[in-house]
């Protein structure tokens, strides 16, 4: 639940969660076990996950234009089978309809099976206000109902609680002594809830599918309580979002193939229940169950019409986007969401519960893309989260730092002058601002969990002409590969030596290089701050800067820049057809350092004289997930003659996240701590990575620890071990 009025209060709540040792331990164990279990489930079944996701996405997208038509068909088919179908525009209407059904049927006692949609509309409160007795029968839901809490996970609502807390709770409920023995506690729930089933008048469920062609609903559960809820009481109400419609059984079975595997690593849940029409019910006067389907809009139709947000309809509520989120793992669902949690929770909160509930939440995304990578519907979650941030700022006003940054960055010359003068100020590069990866430090105040670098004496752009003079002669005529370098601001102004290392390595391999001087910051920091307009302007400046370069590749050593240039530029200028063409041509040429060195230049062991140093690699989020590059850097390090050692969780975020580390330093520091623990455990002397922002974060963290591990960009490690020297 989100009650924090501002970012400060929200950060206070976050700190409380960070201090909850049980929660931290549980979520850590879960994060690791989940990844392994999920991978195994898909591998065992021989499923090509990417194409399955693409099929699900295509099927869902395809039905949106005829959504209301499909709804009508579903209604007709369900009605023909004896179901009463209601449409509810919002939460209040849905609650009123369900309370009305209870009144009309004389229902007093209600049993429920798990439904996130019911949580969304706070159905229990509404029914209890009418004097009805509502009992959740899913074990986790019952536990949190008894504790008057909301769920902390969409699939495991009570994951934040320990057996001792459950024992205390059950002792209260039964008025008897209980032991902290999970097996026994489960049996207690079984008996306690059985008596509730026996006396209930009405059962309420959600639905995972609403199949148009037959008017069937499908329920995916493990405990079996939904079967009792839909069987014993004489009235059954199923509440479902209109996004649960699927045209055919094929569509439902396809989703069923991914849902349990992605949710919990199960091939299928214990029960999948398909209900069509009013089944036999001995407790009803005419021996037929009275069934109502309440189909909920509550912001969904608006979403369906939105060109960007309509993809949210692909969500199957598997919860995986929380399972892999490094922020969720630190603070749990009560802080990483309002009612819906995790990446999708940040988005749904905005649509279902409004900007006030969402405004702090949407800033708490480090943009690591882990959620996007795992999503069963292929939803571009980080982009949507960012876009909501933009919308909220456009409505509620932009904070000063973002505006200032935007003003400065629109004007490349001013921006670069500021960077140059920063060095004269002789202060550690800006504080906190994670945004240092790209940019001027002057706008943010300091945080001190990592040591910060200073601006270099001479930026790369000033060194480039000298480097060119030295190499061009030696390279001889017409080198085979032509590449333009994109430095990004951090490597230009803070770590020019990384660019130089790459330059020397490439020069040896007969790459003709250029460095368009009109290039500027890639614009990602602006994007992260929700400054969409200036981010777009900067993108156009860069596209223009490279437009006339006669090159095959645009190489960047920064994985975040690469991913942003490649994936976001065409989207940022989508409203301008001529710019889109240019942006696509630009994006097609963009390549990251390791892929260029490994795949294009084909560097092998023969190119290096290695020294067998123990080395490990941190995979930047935007390299492994943003660009899908996994093997190239590791192969290069092995080829360079290093003793390569893979660290645990090498593809988990280091906590930099650009401006994120400025806003949530406590979360950034925790992610960094975990990362460095894994790095140190390898015994490596050298830690390599493909992103200057990660270098800054990792170096700063290791320095604070007093560690002797050296952090370098992969390019530096390779250049130092290269054999030839033109």
């Amino acid at each position: 639940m989100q009650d924090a009025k501002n970012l400060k209060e929200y950060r206070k709540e976050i700190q409380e969660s960070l201090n909850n040792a049980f929660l931290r331990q549980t979520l850590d164990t879960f994060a690791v076990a989940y990844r392994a279990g999920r991978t195994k489930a898909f591998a065992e079944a021989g499923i090509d996950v990417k194409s399955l996701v693409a099929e699900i996405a295509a099927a869902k997208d395809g039905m949106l234009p005829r959504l209301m038509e499909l709804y009508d068909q579903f209604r007709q088919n369900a009605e023909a089978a004896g179901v009463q179908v209601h449409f509810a525009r919002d939460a209040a209407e849905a609650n009123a309809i369900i309370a009305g059904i209870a009144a009309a049927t004389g229902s007093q006692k209600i049993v429920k099976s798990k439904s996130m949609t019911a949580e969304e509309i706070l159905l229990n409160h509404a029914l209890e206000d009418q004097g009805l007795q509502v009992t959740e029968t899913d074990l986790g839901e019952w536990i949190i109902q008894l504790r008057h809490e909301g769920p902390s996970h969409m699939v495991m609502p009570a994951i934040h609680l320990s057996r001792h807390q459950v024992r205390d709770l059950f002792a209260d409920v039964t008025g008897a002594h209980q032991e902290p023995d999970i097996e026994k506690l489960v049996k207690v729930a079984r008996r306690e809830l059985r008596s509730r089933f026996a006396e209930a008048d009405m059962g309420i469920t959600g639905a995972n599918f609403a199949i148009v062609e037959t008017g069937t609903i499908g329920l995916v559960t493990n405990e079996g309580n939904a079967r009792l809820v839909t069987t014993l009481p004489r009235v059954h109400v199923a509440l479902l979002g209109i996004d649960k419609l699927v045209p055919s059984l094929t569509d439902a079975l396809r989703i069923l193939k991914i849902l349990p595997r992605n949710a919990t690593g199960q091939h299928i849940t214990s029960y999948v229940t398909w209900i069509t029409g009013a089944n036999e019910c001995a407790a009803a006067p005419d021996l037929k169950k009275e069934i109502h389907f309440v189909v909920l809009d509550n912001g969904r139709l608006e979403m369906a019409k939105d060109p960007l947000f309509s993809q949210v309809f692909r969500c199957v509520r598997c919860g995986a986007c929380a399972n892999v989120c490094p922020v969720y793992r630190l603070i749990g669902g009560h802080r990483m969401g309002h009612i819906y949690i995790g990446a999708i929770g940040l988005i749904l909160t905005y649509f279902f519960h409004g900007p006030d509930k969402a405004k702090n939440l949407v800033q708490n995304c480090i943009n690591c893309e882990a959620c996007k990578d795992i999503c069963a519907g292929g939803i571009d979650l980080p982009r949507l989260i960012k876009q909501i941030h933009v919308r909220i700022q456009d409505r509620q006003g932009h904070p000063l730092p973002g505006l200032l940054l935007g003003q400065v960055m629109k004007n490349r010359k001013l921006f670069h002058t500021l960077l140059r003068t920063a060095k004269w100020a002789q202060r550690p590069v800006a504080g906190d601002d994670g945004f240092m990866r790209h940019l001027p430090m002057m706008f943010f105040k300091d945080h001190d969990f990592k040591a910060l670098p200073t601006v270099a004496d001479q930026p790369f752009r000033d060194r480039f002409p000298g480097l060119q003079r030295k190499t061009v002669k030696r390279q001889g005529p017409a080198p085979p590969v032509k590449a333009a370098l994109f430095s990004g601001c951090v490597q230009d102004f803070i770590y020019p030596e990384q660019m130089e290392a790459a330059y020397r390595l490439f020069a040896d391999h007969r790459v003709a290089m250029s460095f368009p001087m009109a290039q500027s910051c890639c614009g990602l920091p602006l994007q992260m701050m929700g400054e969409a307009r200036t981010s777009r302007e900067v993108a156009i400046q860069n596209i223009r800067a490279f437009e006339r370069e006669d090159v095959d590749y645009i190489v960047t050593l920064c994985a975040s820049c690469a991913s942003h240039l490649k994936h976001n530029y065409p989207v940022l200028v989508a409203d301008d057809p001529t710019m889109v063409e240019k942006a696509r041509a630009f994006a097609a040429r963009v390549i990251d350092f390791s892929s260029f060195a490994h795949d294009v230049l084909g560097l092998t062991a023969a190119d290096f004289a290695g020294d067998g140093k123990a080395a490990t690699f941190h995979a930047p989020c935007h390299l492994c997930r943003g660009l899908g590059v996994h093997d190239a850097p590791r192969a290069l390090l092995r080829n360079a003659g290093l003793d390569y050692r893979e660290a645990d969780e090498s593809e988990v975020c280091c906590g930099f996240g650009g401006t994120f580390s400025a806003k949530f330093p406590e979360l950034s520091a925790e992610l960094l701590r975990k990362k460095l623990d894994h790095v140190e455990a390898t015994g490596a002397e050298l830690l390599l990575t493909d992103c200057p922002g990660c270098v800054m974060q990792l170096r700063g963290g290791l320095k604070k620890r007093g560690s002797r591990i050296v952090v370098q960009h992969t390019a530096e490690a390779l250049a130092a071990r290269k054999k030839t020297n033109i």
Partner: protein
Amino acid sequence: MTETLTAPDVDLTARFSDKARAVSAIVESVATLDAAFDYCVDLCGRHGACRITISGCDESLSPPADSLCDLKQGKIIAAPGLAPDQFAALAARCTDQGMTCLHSGMRDNLSGVDLGFTIAELGIAETGTLVITCPDEDLRLATMLCEYHVCMLRRSTIVADAFAAERRLLRYMRRTPDYTAFITGPSRTADIERVLALGVHGPLELHILVLED
């Protein structure tokens, strides 16, 4: 989608059994329906699956939950889906052993029965899943309110995956009203500390008897 309800496929049966066992189901093969009945009576009697008190009733409960526990008297096998002659064969065995055998009236036994016996329509090899259509309320309840669920599955009805049974499933759904259940392993939860516990609401054990037909 094509239907693959053809000759018995040894591979499918093996795959089905592996997958079902992987989720804690017990899979055995039987030669005849009578052998399946023997299995039930044996499980309930000699193997002690049936007890006077049912699971959870030994725990400390609140008075209303506890009073439901008192309802059950003696050992009960429920088999509502059987044809009259089949039921008679099972009931005779039960009477011999001093057990009650129910063909209907599950609502009078909400505290639970010891064993529920059913016959599946289909088996899905990919996930070790049983498909049981149960618009009949007693049949439905028999699969939920029992401590042990014993389900007979004809080998010839095992299909590769749910898509292979799609036309059939659609046929069930169109014959409204319909209540089709996919059942895979016993009822389970991991809601407390993510520790797996079986039998939270439904059966504690699922026994699948593959009939060699």
